[in-house]
């Protein structure tokens, strides 16, 4: 588990910096560039750098300097952080080493999903959008992929389209992946604005939790969600946009897992990808765990049927967030090691497993709160 928040301690009295900052470990960075960077170094004086970040030493620099607490010692060259002025808090916004940088745009949402890992809030948090726009201008343009998530990003309306446009301007070679419930796209004119971006590598991941509209509406706790989401998908695909369907597997979605696969094959054959995703025990899932829990071991045959049905229809399907010892061999063509590096772990009991390199591991939260009782290391 890698922490994306951490404390710091001011070393120089003159430190009054706050805001977004790119980090470097290159003490010899050309002088004209230094004022855009924070330097990570335990020894350098850091002339010309905006700020110097110490990990193990407490030597004040010539200008501003801070000491990072242990949990954020992973910070390195190319990372981007936001430094809070008053609270001695540092947030990690972009990690160069990760190929799964995901950026939260808002905590507001028009869904209230039973298993939401990021429980929605109603506060106006549109300051985040301003920060992200600034961030997009700082992210290196050789970044492979960037994710936007929420809350529901499209609640920003046209401002969200503007952000994607900014991505196209500053990061034309970066694949952008958006997580949205798709309902905003039921408005064809909005879908058209999105399509008109003509972004070279843009995909939106949209959840469908059941082929049954009532079950879907119940899971997302919103009337009309199913019909509006489907209309959104139809509009996006009519405009040639790339759409991924995401199915989070919990008790209510697993009940009709094969029916979902069949529904997709029959009605939405043209989607670009289907992701069947194991439950992350965060946010609401923790409070609803007893109701939502279903052991991967108990649905592995259903998972096989769904995966192989989708595969038969030529649909590109992936299984995310599952452990190798809890899936049948016949889904391995779809099995992905998907858990973000900063929250991926294994159990102690996994030590010595002969197929650990095939296994995607666990969410840190699963290790902490609940995991299948059938985890069993493979013998070599």
């Amino acid at each position, binding site marked *: 588990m890698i922490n994306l928040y951490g404390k710091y301690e001011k070393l120089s009295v003159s430190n009054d910096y706050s805001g977004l900052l790119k980090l470097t470990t290159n003490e010899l960075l050309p002088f004209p560039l230094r004022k855009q960077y924070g330097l990570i170094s335990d020894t350098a004086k850091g002339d010309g750098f905006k700020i110097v970040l110490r990990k193990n030493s407490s030597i004040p620099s010539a200008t501003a300097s801070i000491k990072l607490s242990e949990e954020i010692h992973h910070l390195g060259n190319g990372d981007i952080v936001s430094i809070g002025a008053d609270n001695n808090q540092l947030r990690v916004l972009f990690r160069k080493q990760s190929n799964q940088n995901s950026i939260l745009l808002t905590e507001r949402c028009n869904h*209230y999903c*039973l298993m939401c890992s990021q429980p929605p809030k109603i506060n106006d948090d549109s300051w985040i959008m301003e920060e992200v726009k600034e961030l997009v201008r700082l992210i290196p343009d050789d970044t492979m992929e960037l994710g936007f998530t929420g809350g529901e990003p499209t609640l920003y309306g046209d401002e969200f389209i503007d952000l994607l446009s900014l991505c196209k301007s500053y990061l034309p070679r970066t694949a952008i992946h958006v997580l949205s419930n798709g309902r905003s796209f039921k408005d064809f004119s909005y879908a058209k604005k999105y399509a008109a971006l003509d972004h070279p590598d843009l995909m939106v991941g949209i959840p469908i939790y059941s*082929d*049954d*509209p*009532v*079950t879907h*509406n*119940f899971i997302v*706790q919103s*009337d*009309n969600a*199913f*019909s*509006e989401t*489907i*209309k959104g998908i*139809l509009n996006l695909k009519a405009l040639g946009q790339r759409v991924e369907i995401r199915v989070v597997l919990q008790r209510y979605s697993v009940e*009709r897992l094969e*029916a979902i696969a069949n*529904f997709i*094959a*029959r*009605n939405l*054959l043209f989607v670009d990808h289907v992701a069947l995703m194991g439950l992350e025990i965060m946010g609401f899932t923790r409070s*609803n765990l007893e*109701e939502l829990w279903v052991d991967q071991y108990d649905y592995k045959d259903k998972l096989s*049927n769904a995966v*192989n*049905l989708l595969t*038969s*229809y*030529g649909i590109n399907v992936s299984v995310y967030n599952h452990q190798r010892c809890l899936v049948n061999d016949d889904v391995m063509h779809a099995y992905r090691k998907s858990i973000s590096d900063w929250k991926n772990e294994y159990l102690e009991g996994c030590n010595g497993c002969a197929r650990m390199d095939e296994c995607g591991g666990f969410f840190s939260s699963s290790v902490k709160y609940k995991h299948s009782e059938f985890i069993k290391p493979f013998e070599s």
Partner: protein
Amino acid sequence: MSKFQPIAFYAKPTENSYSLLPFKFSRFTNNRILLTNMVGEYFLLEEDKFQKFVSKKLGTNESSYIDLRSKHFLKDSSNEVAIDLLALKLRTKLSRLSDFTALHIFVVSLRCEHSCPYCQVSRQSEDKQKFDMSEEIAHKAVELVFRSPSPTIKIEFQGGEPLLNFELIKYIVVRAKQINENERRNLDFVIATNLAVVTDEILQFCSENKVHISTSLDGPKELHNKNRPRKGGDSYERAISGIKFARDVLGKDQVSALMTTTEASLSKVKDIIDEYIENDFDGIFLRHLSPYGFAIKTKSYASYSTEKWLDFYKKGLEYIIEINRNGLFFQEFYASTLLKKILTSEETGFVDLMNPAGIGIAAVVYNYDGSVHPSDESRMLAEMGDDKFKLGSVLTNTYEEIFGSEALLNPLEESFSSSNPMCTDCTYELYCGADPVYHYALHNDFVGRKPESSFCNRNMSIIDYLINRMEDDPFVKKLFYKWANR
């Protein structure tokens, strides 16, 4: 869960508040009713549930209610999008229509060195003048081909034995590719040949021009040679060595084979299938004998009944299912075609199983003498002296005259199954097709009397069988999903 509403909160529709979407139904096995909706999705419902369903008394939280809603047999306030999805699926099913004719068959010669008793049309003759297509006719026909708006054009060479007029095949291929430099269609060529007279030079040409070979293989040696006599009695040997030769030069997937079922085949379905497996084909098309041409004249068609053929077919299908269960992927192509219609939202381009009928719309035949026919079967009818379906001639008629002719439009309109007695109510209408040529040939009418139609009987029986089979056996269902999407 206090912050959260229970599922009942979202199950807004109360009883009696749903409406039925269009569907057809019939009795099925085990006191069940089979329902099919307007885009070909099917659902099996117990009879008492069915009664409740149609009288709008099915409870909204019953699992069959949820299934029927998901499969678009009913609509309530929670699934308004059902109408959009049905419309989309219907458009998808019918989307081939706007492409119009994709398959263009050229009968380059009626001559053949085989004398198969079931053959519809071929002639034992050296008279090239009389039975070979001329360059003039070929030239005009190729121009008609590219009048079709279809983005995909397949030109198939038939006979007789088309290789006996290979010079003309070369002429047509070269000419079509020349025109296609501007047209930019997705252009394919196929030669339907017995391979008996194939040469290295022919295969080199096919290789250079990406011409696919479709040959005949009726089964094991004894059966094949009995069905397909030629001088020397070596049809089988020539077919097998021809297949290998053609695969060597063209590539394995560029060579396919077709079989015809004669009375002698009926007891040998396993041997026939084994022959295909042994020769490394990944499937077989268990074809019944068509009722045209010499097949009627020589009475070999009448020599087996639909029941006997169905028995043959089902035995074959069972054997093929077992082969798959034992680990070899192998399919039966007629079943695959029907399963595509049953299990997917797509449509097949198989001429016999289209509605409106595939004649002219999906395929057209340019005969050796320049006459144009809307299907292979109708040119065979013409060969027997009945010009009912003749659309005109490439020498004297325009594209508009040919494809706007009453000889095409009348049978298309009259045989449209959605307005045909019995078809319109048939649970299997969407899985079947309209075949005006068949019904005209045997019933002297484009529509025919369905209870007496063996076309109808055969298809209904097979569809029944396929649905039963996959409902009974999860392995078969998984296999059929694969066949449907081959």
